[in-house]
């Protein structure tokens, strides 16, 4: 069976990519790895369960959401804006990291991972959560439940959940505007 290629363009981490000639059935994670050399997104289960492959989709209305790149076709992203784990830290002209994102920094401080395979998905999920809380802050007494709900689908095999949780809670509690005053 012949593979049909189609031109594909999108914005990844703020940069315009393409048009590239890409097979129409290619999954996004393979596109990221093989066509644009962004290898930070992890292929875990390959069937949308573990969330190691999660990237961030930026919607035109300013909202952001998690998207599983292992089960979403690359061409789904035609004309769309996406962020991957490589897009969080600030880089200098040489491509060196000069400043981590707040989530990344807190993950480091809390030593929130062991093998690190699922970390890209967790960082992206936590980032989406923080962005959502900027738009819709929650009451202080809902913080724990909100974090649990946001990260619950992500699987970590090194039992790092508690440290992820603590890092995200640290960010949420110490970033102005994410939490409403306690009741």
């Amino acid at each position, binding site marked *: 069976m012949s593979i049909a290629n189609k031109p594909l363009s999108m914005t990844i981490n703020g940069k315009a990519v393409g048009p590239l000639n890409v097979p129409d*059935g290619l999954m996004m994670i393979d596109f990221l790895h093989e066509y644009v050399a962004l290898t930070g997104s992890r292929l875990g289960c390959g*069937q*949308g369960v573990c969330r190691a492959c999660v990237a961030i989709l930026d919607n035109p209305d300013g909202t952001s959401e998690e998207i599983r790149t292992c089960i*979403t*076709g690359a*061409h*789904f992203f035609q004309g769309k804006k996406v962020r991957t784990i490589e897009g969080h830290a600030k880089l200098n002209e040489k491509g060196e990291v000069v400043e981590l994102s707040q989530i990344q920094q807190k993950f480091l401080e809390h030593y929130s991972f062991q093998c690190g395979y699922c970390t890209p998905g967790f960082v992206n999920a936590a980032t989406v959560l923080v962005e959502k809380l900027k738009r819709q802050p929650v009451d202080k007494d809902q913080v724990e439940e909100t974090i649990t709900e946001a990260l619950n689908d992500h699987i970590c095999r090194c039992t790092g959940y508690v440290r992820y949780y603590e890092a995200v809670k640290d960010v949420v509690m110490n970033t102005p505007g994410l939490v409403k005053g306690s009741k």
Partner: protein
Amino acid sequence: MIAKPFRFVLIGLVTAILAGCGAEASSTADKAAAPASAEQVARGKYLARAADCAACHTAEDGGAPFAGGVALETPFGKLFGTNITPDKDHGIGNWSADDFYKALHDGVAPDKRLYPAMPYTSYRSLSRDDTDALYAYFMSVKPAKVANKEDELHFPFNLRFGIVFWNMLFLKDSLPDASTGQSASWQRGRYLAGALGHCAECHTPRGKLGQLDLDKPLTGGVLARIGAPDITPAGLAARGWTPKDLETFFATGVAPQGSAYGEMYPVIHLSSQHLSKTDLTAMATYLMGDKPPAPAPLKTVAADAAELNAGRQLYTAVCAGCHGREGEGKPNVTVAMKGNSTVRNADPRNLIVATLDGIKEQRFPNNGAMQEMPGFANKLNDKEMAQLANFLRASWGGQAADVTADAVKALR
């Protein structure tokens, strides 16, 4: 709309007067209560599974067995399964075997008439031996002090005396067959699927007063959001079913034609997986008949190329990752779309609803599983949903690409 159904009730009232109210009178002296044997209790347990009593009488997520509380949404309001444990205050602890028989056979409990949500319309055909075994089993389960919930029915359906007329009009001694057969297996299957399994209650369409449309047995009904498909021999064969595949489906919840979802998912778990192979063969034999029609080969249907291509693009973008590029599915992950019973259904309702709402992760007997299917209600608009459904129907369902955006909108 109360006026029209109410008119039916009035007709029923007149009918009742003409008939001289004869249907009420039926009283038999209670049989001497012989102690139940272990064998009878065991048989009753098997029958309770075959009749899927737990579906309505055991609340999900840790409800005490047979203590009731399961909500049943009907066009007439909400009803709740009742406590059928031997608790004397809330359950059936004070019932005799005769009382129990009358509840199943006539829909009449000692204290009230039952609404036909309790499928006595089907259970009516149960043998007295079997209702006695069921009674023995329920009297052996742990009594649960769980109060029954009040029904939430709209007027005039909240008036139980209306059931008298409903029964006169609609309660029949036997239900019509959709298949033909004479074999012992077919006969046994008829009893299992009709009297016990009460398949007709969901799979036969219903009229305005909730009565089974007995002119169209097992041709499919839409009581719930996921409709119950046509399970006549012709309907099943048209979607590629064979008796053997049906048997596999009843035993495991998964067949080449797809996996159980919607209301059928608990049926597999609570009922059919526990039945003997002989009984499952019998049910499949009954549903498809002694001479089952050959499964219809899958054909591709011509459709507008641009629309089909648009649907294919959508499929590749958001479905193929799990269901496979060629719709082949992945074992214990997703069902195949190619030749899928829901895709092959002429009525696109379930295909659209499943795509809009998604399906929760499923566990099946023998460690089978299907992972969670996300809903696409917020991802795809009506037009895209229709294009996707049409691509599936024409390519892998042998159905016309006739789903409209309006049809999708109506199901949101």
